[in-house]
């Protein structure tokens, strides 16, 4: 039953559409890319031209008169059927490259042998896009995304570096994904690859936006007013009315793809001022340096002559093809060119141009000063950098055909082959039988080596130590103390005499008696000493003399020179008594 009803509906629709083709209507409309009414288009800024064909379901592209003066791309075809009436909408993005008054249309479509024409559009193209003031207000209020191109300067010279960036802003919190950015085509600029995008946050009209930014460098190729057409950003926003309604979250979030166009960029590009001479580049350069890999070479040998330029410009296109004023006896050939990105100062690069120089005759030859002239757009004047001259000493040798130093053998051709046996014969042959494989050679660790080296010295050390300790212990035994008591006393007395330390005499004798007779040095008294002297058969006269001597040295020791006059013969007397004791003891 359902199938039959469906079939009837289909037949009805078909018949209705056939009947309606009898009266086809075509309308041509223009609007801004975000759907607002367009009053005036701008150079480089795309706008939308729509051809609405009512009464036909044919999607055949209509022919639009006058659109060829614009850069055009068809962006889509949509078919709508409302109450059985089909309408087909063809959309085009149109970009004007020059300001002026244009007429677009009519759009012409052929259907079943009949030709239908649309209205014509008067489009005014100026340097700036104009929208209806109300639309402008709505646009600024509802903007969820903003896409803009920002240059670092607008007035430039031909070949001058322009730093550009685009920024894609989207409202913070909105789940918007940037799918891609389509750069506009322009042959007026030489563009370098974009840098990786960076992100950030910014406040615009009291609303917080996240943004993605990417930078690139470009160089204008010609003078005049040049426009870089708008870039297109494609992004995705969450779909508002999902087919599954509230259940959509079960199927994953669905997104709707949208697009936005940036502003175009217009530059006033000036031509370079006239100059009598060769200008190599436009930009800023720091240094120009010439060097050779060796200053002394044999006749016919290849010498690498390098010119190095440091600066900030498009080094991919910069080239130095010749060495100017090269002496006739020196031949040179192009070799490598390479850019050193990291070796130069901040923001600067270096490029090296290598030439192989070959001297045809011996002698002293000078490669003269090389000049590099460029236009500095900052200071708006021409500047010239110069190298130092390079002097080569060429020794006499067999002139050989030129062979680039770093070129592999296979590429040298016949000339290379001539050279090979010569080189082969000059050096000794390869080694075929000696050990070629690497073996790790471990040495004895230094600390182990030193320990092992000291090992044989160990018995000697032990013996020496034993002897020393024995001597020391003997030196301090009571017997040895007694034995050396006199010599120690004599030494001390000599030392005291040298220092004129008369106070020490008393203690020297006390120590002598204490050590010689094994008494306690602190407790020993004059009576103990007299008793010893009596035992050792000293006469009473001698004992009396001794007592007088002791009284004197004691008074020196305990009262000092202020109260007692010092007898200069006291040291001699002390030696006398020492000799006497030594004799008797």
């Amino acid at each position, binding site marked *: 039953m359902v199938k039959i009803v469906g079939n009837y509906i289909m037949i009805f629709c078909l018949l209705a559409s056939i009947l309606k083709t009898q009266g086809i209507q075509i309308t041509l409309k223009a609007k801004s890319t975000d759907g607002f009414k367009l009053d005036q288009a701008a150079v480089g800024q795309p706008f939308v031209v729509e051809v609405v064909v009512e009464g036909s379901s044919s999607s055949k592209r209509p022919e639009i008169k006058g659109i060829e003066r614009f850069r055009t791309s068809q962006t889509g075809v949509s078919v709508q059927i409302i109450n059985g009436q089909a309408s087909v909408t063809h959309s085009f993005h149109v970009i004007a490259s020059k300001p002026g008054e244009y007429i677009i249309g009519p759009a012409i479509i052929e259907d079943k042998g009949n030709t239908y024409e649309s209205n014509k559009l008067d489009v005014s193209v100026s340097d700036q896009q104009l929208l209806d003031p109300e639309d402008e207000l709505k646009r600024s209020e509802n903007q969820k995304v903003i896409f803009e191109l920002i240059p670092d300067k607008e007035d430039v010279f031909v070949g001058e570096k322009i730093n550009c960036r685009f920024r894609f802003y989207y409202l913070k919190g909105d789940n918007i994904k940037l799918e891609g950015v389509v750069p506009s085509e322009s042959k007026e600029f030489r563009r370098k690859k974009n840098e990786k995008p960076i992100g950030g946050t910014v406040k615009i009209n009291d609303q917080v936006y996240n943004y993605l930014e990417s930078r690139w460098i470009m160089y204008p190729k010609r003078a005049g007013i040049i426009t870089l057409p708008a870039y297109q950003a494609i992004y995705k926003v969450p779909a508002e009315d999902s087919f599954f309604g509230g259940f959509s979250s079960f199927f994953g979030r669905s997104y709707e793809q949208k697009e936005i166009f940036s502003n175009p960029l217009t530059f006033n590009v000036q031509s370079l001022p006239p100059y009598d001479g060769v200008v190599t580049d436009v930009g800023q350069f720091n240094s120009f340096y010439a060097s050779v890999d*060796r200053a002394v070479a044999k006749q016919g040998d290849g010498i690498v002559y390098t010119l190095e330029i440091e600066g900030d410009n498009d080094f991919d296109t910069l080239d130095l093809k010749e060495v100017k004023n090269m002496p006739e006896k020196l031949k040179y050939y192009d070799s490598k060119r390479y850019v050193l990105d990291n070796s130069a100062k901040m923001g600067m690069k270096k490029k090296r141009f290598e030439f192989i120089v070959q001297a045809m005759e011996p002698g002293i030859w000078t490669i003269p000063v090389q000049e590099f002239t460029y236009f500095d757009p900052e200071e708006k004047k021409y500047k010239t950098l110069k190298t130092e001259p390079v002097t080569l000493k060429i020794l006499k040798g067999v002139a050989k055909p030129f062979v680039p130093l770093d*070129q592999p053998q296979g590429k040298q051709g016949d000339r290379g082959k001539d050279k090979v046996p010569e080189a082969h014969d000059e050096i000794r042959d390869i080694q075929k039988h000696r050990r*070629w*494989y690497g073996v790790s050679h471990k040495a004895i660790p230094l600390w182990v080596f030193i320990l092992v080296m000291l090992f044989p010295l160990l018995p000697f050390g032990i013996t020496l130590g034993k002897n020393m300790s024995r001597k020391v212990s003997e030196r301090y035994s009571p017997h040895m103390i007694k034995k050396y008591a006199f010599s120690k006393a004599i030494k001390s007395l000599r030392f005291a005499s040298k220092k004129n330390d008369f106070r020490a005499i008393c203690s020297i004798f006390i120590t002598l008696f204490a050590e010689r007779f094994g008494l306690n040095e602190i407790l020993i008294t004059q009576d103990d000493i007299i008793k010893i002297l009596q035992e050792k058969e000293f006469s009473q006269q001698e004992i009396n003399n001794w007592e007088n001597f002791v009284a004197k040295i004691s008074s020196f020791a305990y009262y000092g020179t202020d109260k007692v006059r010092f007898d200069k013969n006291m040291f001699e007397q002390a030696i006398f008594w020492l000799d006497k004791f030594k004799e008797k003891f």
Partner: protein
Amino acid sequence: MCKKIILFFIVFTVCFLGMNIVCLASKQEEMFLTANNLYEQKKYKQALDLYKKIEKKDSALLYNIGNCEFCLGHYVAAIIAWNKSKKGAALGNLNDINHNISVAYDKLGISHEVSFWQEMKDIINSFFLFYLQLLFLIFWFLFFLVFMFIKKLRGLFLGFTLSLSFIFLSIVVIKYRLIRREEAIVTSATSFFAGPNEKYHKLGDLSVADKIIVQKKEKKWYKIDHDGVVGWVLIDHVEKV
């Protein structure tokens, strides 16, 4: 049973590893011999590529690499390879190496004379430290053994063993110093500066194939000694030998 299984696995693993090592070694040897043949056929580029593929390189291999580089006209690269080959080279081969280096310097138009001290250094450099240490220790122990046990001609033996010990100890000390002394060859003409940056004062120029002593490394710079002048040079311009 368990013991048998473990034993089987041990034997299997040892055999497997042994076979792998043997296969690897024979593959490397095959490469070396093929490269030698290519050199004989004057296919220097192919020979060089093969030599370079061999993982562990010893003196003879480095020497052959130097020969290939020379024949290809890469004189600086040849000098570097030959200088590297001096380490561990047989005494008889040192002459060949020095001859080749002189020829390469001659090709570059640079006068190159090998001093007596340089020859001595090369000879000492060619010795392995382990053997020198061992020789010293042998004579050192012999000296003490003679001292303790030999009575006849004691003075003669003591003098002999002590002299040899002293000679070998001196060589060991020099060898230690040479090991710590890192030499490098300048691969492209450049300048050297007072500090590890081009902003520092320029102290002088280095020509291709100049020999310098590397004292230390800091990021992309080597601290070098060039004829007694100490400065800094970018790593890219020199290669250690």
